[in-house]
Structures are given as structure tokens and as C-alpha cells.
């Protein structure tokens, strides 16, 4: 499925949802409790899985079942979490009771079905927005975990924010190695170092998911000279086009691309400058499901570059670059 990006002016009315993911023992529940008990004057509804090892200290906690469903739209990667559709629908019936929703996934979960639920279900889309996928990474064990588990790769690739936890348990050289490894998979998610989940809340909550500007501004330069990756590995490709884009051409191209390669492309994010539009357009996709909206005008004097990032496997950088460049206005 490749829905045409829908402009939306109701972003603020939507309940922000934070998805907390990370491998077993990385410290998800510790981080969750840190968020819940911090002095922020906000109330959260929490959706947990029943196998959580630690208790969660919150008034409104809902158990999830992790029922992953395929959509009947012909693409096998369009899986959604049926239980979440129900739970989020139920939570919306007591809308006034909380300011945001936090979903904790099991350590072994692939984040794709959770993220895709926010694209695929009309009722979920109408009332909530995915604020950010926050991936908690255990600095001590992640390199070993990555060797053993494809899910750990997916969780890092899907992150909008990475919390590198347990940094007190490794030395600086190891820490650098871990960060380089995380960067090689996901070049755009900011990495915040933490011990026992002690992060600044503003690093995790209310990321405004698609105010990608900040994220894209800080995109490291080495992306433009990527090291060689094994084809099966997940990696990022980042592209910049200075000429304004033709919105119609872009949608044709990205729609066809995601239709064909969406199984390999886990996430796509970008800030785009469409010809004739005063506003920046934020685009994002999870596998084949795409979405987008205007996020306000460009700043005075800011270069109106279109930036697009792909995270996935078997990414052909020259081909992607030529594709995006072909969307520039003639």
C-alpha cells in the first residue's frame, strides 16, 4: 500500500504515542518507570506486554496480546497489531484521562507491525499520531546481540531516538565502537547516553516525530561517503536535492519505489521542498505505508533543500539518488 501523503492540519488534536522498544534486558521498563515518575505533570496511558519482568507504576496500564495481522492488500509486509487497534480505540473512549500513550513492546518484537498500525488503520490515524519509536540499547551486550538476533537490527533501524543505556558498564573505546555500529545501521536517530534509564524526558517524549528538521540538520557527514556494507546488512542512505521537487513526480516515484522495494526499505523519512509550496513537507514511510504532512514554512534564509533518508537493506544509493533527482522540477 502506498497511500498518497495526506495534508493534515489536525496534528495537535491527535494523541501522541511513543513506542518503546529494545532487546530483552536493555532496560525498557526502567526507562518507562523513569518517564512515568518524573515531574512533568503529564499523565500517560501505558500499554505493556504481559511478559514484562518489572512492574509498571502507573494508573492506566493495559495488557497487550501482540496479535500481528496481515492486511488484505496484497503486500505481505503490511502487518499490523490487531490488539493495538482495539486497545487504542478503547483508550480513545477515555480520552480526557491522559496526555499521551506509551507502548512497550516485547524484547523480541519486530517494531514494523506496531509502526504500521499507525498508518494502516483509519481510526488509529484519525485520533493518534506516532510521536517516536524509542529504542533502548544495552551498551554492554548489544554487539553480541546484533550477531545473534535479526530483531535487534530491526529495532535499531526503526528508531527515531536511541537510548544507549548502561554506559557505565563499558569503557570509552567500547562505547565508541557501539555508537559507530548503531550509526552504521541507523544514521539519523539521535543517540542519547544513559545509565539506568536516566535520560532527559525531552529527549524521549514529544519528539513531534516528524519535525525531522532537527534530526536531518544533525545528520553526520560520513553518510555522504558510506563505508562498504554487506548487502544483507541494514544501513542508511541519505540524499539531498537542492532544486525544488515536483510533488506529483515525487509521489509517483516514491509510490512505485516502495511498492517494489518496500520489503527491504524499513523506514523512509524526509523533509521536502515542493515547487510552489510555502511549507516544508514531512514525508515518512514504514515499509510500503507512507504518510506526510505540511509542517510549516521554511525559515528565513534557510536553504530549501529536500532531504530524504532510507533505512533498509540492499539499498542502491546511485539508483535512489537518480530517482530522487528525477523528481526535481525541470
Amino acid at each position, binding site marked *: 500500500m502506498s497511500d498518497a501523503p495526506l495534508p493534515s492540519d489536525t496534528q495537535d488534536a491527535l494523541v501522541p504515542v511513543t513506542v518503546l522498544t529494545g532487546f530483552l534486558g536493555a532496560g525498557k521498563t526502567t526507562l518507562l518507570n523513569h518517564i512515568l515518575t518524573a515531574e512533568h505533570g503529564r499523565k500517560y496511558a501505558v500499554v505493556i506486554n504481559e511478559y514484562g519482568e518489572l512492574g509498571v507504576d502507573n494508573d492506566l496500564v493495559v*495488557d497487550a*496480546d501482540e*496479535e500481528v*495481522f*496481515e*492486511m*488484505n*492488500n496484497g503486500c505481505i509486509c503490511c502487518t*499490523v497489531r*490487531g*490488539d493495538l*487497534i*482495539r486497545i487504542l480505540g*478503547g483508550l*480513545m*473512549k*477515555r*480520552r480526557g484521562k491522559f496526555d499521551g500513550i506509551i507502548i512497550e513492546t516485547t524484547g523480541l518484537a519486530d517494531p514494523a507491525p506496531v509502526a504500521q498500525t499507525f498508518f494502516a*488503520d*483509519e*481510526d488509529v490515524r484519525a485520533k493518534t499520531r506516532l510521536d517516536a519509536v524509542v529504542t533502548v540499547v544495552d551498551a554492554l551486550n548489544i554487539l553480541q546481540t546484533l550477531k545473534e538476533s535479526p530483531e535487534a537490527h530491526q529495532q535499531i533501524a526503526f528508531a527515531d531516538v536511541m537510548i544507549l543505556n548502561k554506559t557505565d558498564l563499558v569503557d570509552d573505546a567500547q562505547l565508541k565502537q557501539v555508537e559507530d555500529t548503531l550509526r552504521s545501521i541507523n544514521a539519523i536517530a539521535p543517540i542519547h547516553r544513559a545509565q539506568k534509564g536516566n535520560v532527559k524526558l525531552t529527549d524521549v517524549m514529544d519528539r513531534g516525530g516528524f519535525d525531522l528538521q532537527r534530526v536531518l540538520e544533525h545528520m553526520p557527514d560520513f553518510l555522504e561517503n558510506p563505508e562498504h556494507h554487506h548487502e544483507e546488512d541494514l544501513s542508511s542512505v541519505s540524499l539531498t536535492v537542492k532544486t525544488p521537487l515536483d510533488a506529483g513526480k515525487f509521489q509517483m516515484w516514491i509510490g512505485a519505489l516502495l511498492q517494489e522495494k518496500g520489503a527491504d526499505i524499513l523506514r523512509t523519512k524526509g523533509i521536502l521542498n515542493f515547487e510552489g509550496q510555502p511549507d516544508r513537507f514531512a514525508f515518512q514511510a514504514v515499509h510500503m505505508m507512507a504518510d506526510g504532512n505540511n509542517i510549516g514554512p521554511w525559515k528565513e534564509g534557510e536553504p530549501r533543500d529536500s532531504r530524504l533518508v532510507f533505512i533498509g537493506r540492499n539499498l542502491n544509493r546511485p539508483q535512489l539518488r537518480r530517482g530522487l533527482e528525477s523528481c526535481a522540477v525541470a
Partner: protein
Amino acid sequence: MSETLTLRGLIEKRGASRVVEGHITSCAASRDHQRFAFTTGEGDVIVAHRSDLTDAASWATYAVHDGPALSVTPDTDPHGFLTGGDDGRLCRLDMHGEIEELGKSRRWVEHVLSYVDNKTSYIAAAMGKQVELRDATGRTVLKTFEHPSSVSGITFDAKGKRLAASHYNGASLWYTQSKSDNPRLLEWKGSHIGIAMHPQGEALVTAMQDNDLHGWRLSDGHNIRMSGYPTKVRSMSFSANGKWLATSGADVVVMWPFFGGGPMGKPPAELPGAGGALCTRVAFHPEQEVVAAGFADGTVLMIEPATERVLPVSLGGNGPISALAYSADGCMLGFGTEEGLIGLVDLAAA
């Protein structure tokens, strides 16, 4: 809340309304047609007596569930109600306002139904992947039906012989009196989110996540596809004679013909809507060929399919209609909205 709304239509002269706290999740009349109950997202049940129907201030509120009350159905006795909630409880609210907890599950109780005839009475409750079939008292579980995934809807057939449940990849048809514990499995790939049984048992229809309906002709399992909706179909209702299946999910009331060889190869009839607002709830009159429809702008209409005559029940409401039901004698029609408006109309009043 002190919100006052000026509603127009039948409700002005023959009914009353009130705004309560919380999203209205369901509504139903008692078996003796003397009471009408509404459930809310706050866990409350509001009960109106027919004798005080036009005096909305007299409708009583009972705090039954902790968290949203999800479903209400008439009790097996003439007077009371059964409710299910997000708190995992199956409760009875009797005529005196006493609350009895009949069951407690770790899972939400999203669907509750009862069936009563001269010989048998059942209560059925869907809890997560299970459906419990209980006796008339509700205190004894007769059978527990297990499903491969969460149950999204349940329905009895017209004779209480079969209970159908929708779930991922199809529906299960269980025999209430069978010694065997295996259902007839009706398979169709995908996520099924609601269910309706043809009153003469000819077909079983499910609503799907993918904005269409699926049906099975029960005589031979033949698959029926009914598609073309812009949104999910959240509400379905068969006419008493089985000729029509009314559905929500479009900006008109979409009616599938179950006669003359239909609905296979037949286009649905489209009854007038409410000026472009999405139809969110439908309920066929229990005897006559008249359908009630609720819309996303709060409008409630009664429509006669044969003539397409429209009778406004309530205009000027607030928020999408989220609950709509007739009493079994067809004399009361109740509705509720996502914003907490509840309304009740006495169609037999002089």
C-alpha cells in the same frame, strides 16, 4: 456537564435527551421493553424507565465498571441488563439497581449477548480469545469456546442453536447443545472485526479491517464478497424478514439484498444519508421494514427502504452516533454519541 443542545425531530415531542460524561459505547432495552440502558466510556450505565421516558433528569446512573463499559444486552429476566467492561467483568444490573459480578476475566469483556425462548436461555460473553456460554442465571459457565485470536464479535442464530464468533482469518460457528467441542470453521484470510447472522440462518456476514464485508452462505459455505466502502463497517443489521442487510461505513445507508439471488452479483441499495456525513450505526426495526441510521454529525433518521421515506429522529446532535438500538417491541429507539449525548424516543406515544 451542563451542555444543552436543541434537538429537532421526533425527539422533540416523543422523547428526551441528556448529556452525560463519557463516550456512549452501547445501548439496549430490557426484555419487557420497560427500561432502556446506555453504557459509557466512564464505566457507568444510565437506565431510563419507559414511564419517565420524557423526563431525562429521572434517568438513573449506576457506576458498574472500572474503566469503559463496552457492551450492554438485556438480561435473561424481563427487567435487567448484562454488561461487559474493559475491567474484565461481566455484570448484571437488576431492576432494583443491584450490581452482581457474574464473571471476572483478565481480558476485556467486549461483547455480551443473551438468548431466551420457551425452552432455553443463554448468556454469552466474549473475553479476549474465549467466548463463555453461560446458563440463564449467568452464574454457571456451560461451555468455553476457544479461538485462535481475539474475538471481535458474537451473535446467536434466531433459535439459539448456534453461536457465531468472528476473529482473525474467519468465523467459528459453535453448536450450543452439541457434545462435540469443535466449531464449524468458516475461513477467509484477514482480520474480521464484526459479525451478523441472517435471521433465517441463510448466511453469516463479517465486517473486515479492509473496508469490506465477507459472507458465507451457510447451506454450502459459498463465499460472498460485498465491497466498495470508504471506511470500515462498524455496524450491521438484518431486517426481520431477512431481505436486507443494512450497514454503516459510507455516507449513505448501504443495504445488501438477500433475495432474488442476492447479494451475489447484485449491487446494494443506497438509502438517503445525512448530507454527506458518514453513517456510523444502523439498526433495523425488529418487525417492520424500517431501518434506523445514525451518522457522524449526530443525526439519527428512520428510513423506509421501499419508499425511501425519511423520518428525522434527532437533528442537531453532537458527535458521531456510537450506539443505536430499538427495543424488541419496536416501540423505543435509543441512541448515544461519542460526546456523551443520549437520546430516547417513544415511537408508540400518542
